[in-house]
């Protein structure tokens, strides 16, 4: 493990996580959720879980985001909280 990198990534994860929950624009929140997944996937790689990272990249940052965007596009983009 590389401690500083680890810590930075974890920090990013926390920040993007909070942001994804707090942003009122759902599309934006969704995109940030995608980046959250992406940082997570970097952490996994850093911990040696390449397969999981691969999957997370495909799913969390890829298909998941697409699904979210499609759904948000079909519904409302604004959220009150």
């Amino acid at each position: 493990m590389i401690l500083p990198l680890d810590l930075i990534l974890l920090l990013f994860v926390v920040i993007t996580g909070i942001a994804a929950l707090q942003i009122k624009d759902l599309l934006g929140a969704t995109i940030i959720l995608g980046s959250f997944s992406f940082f997570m996937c970097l952490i996994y790689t850093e911990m040696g879980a390449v397969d999981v990272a691969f999957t997370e990249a495909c799913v969390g940052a890829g298909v998941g985001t697409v699904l979210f965007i499609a759904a948000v596009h079909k519904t409302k983009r604004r959220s009150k909280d």
Partner: protein
Amino acid sequence: MFEYIVSKYNYWVYIFLMMLGLYGMIGKKNLVKKLIGMNIFQVAIILFYISIGSKVGASIPILTAEDLHGSANPLHYMNPLPHVLMLTAIVVGIATTGVALGIIIMVYNRYKTLAEDEILEIRKKSGV
């Protein structure tokens, strides 16, 4: 004490993320926000599992050519079992997200809003 905190920092982050997700699921009113919370929640648990599986000084769980025939030292490779479990968990997570999004769209088609309190009000009005 300091060392105790540092030695498990992954776990602290995972607990924080999980709480974040749980809060999103319960406290947020927008359905998509709830779902985002749910995703964070699940990913946090995955982080926890991956943290279980990691070993200091080990490499990714793919055998190198010289280790193929049974001479592999388990200490040199990450613990593969949590990874396997988490593959499944990720898939389950995306499946749940998919179904939930489908349901959200059904909800929206019916109520034309995604805010939980507004939906409750509409339901109260229509007497259902």
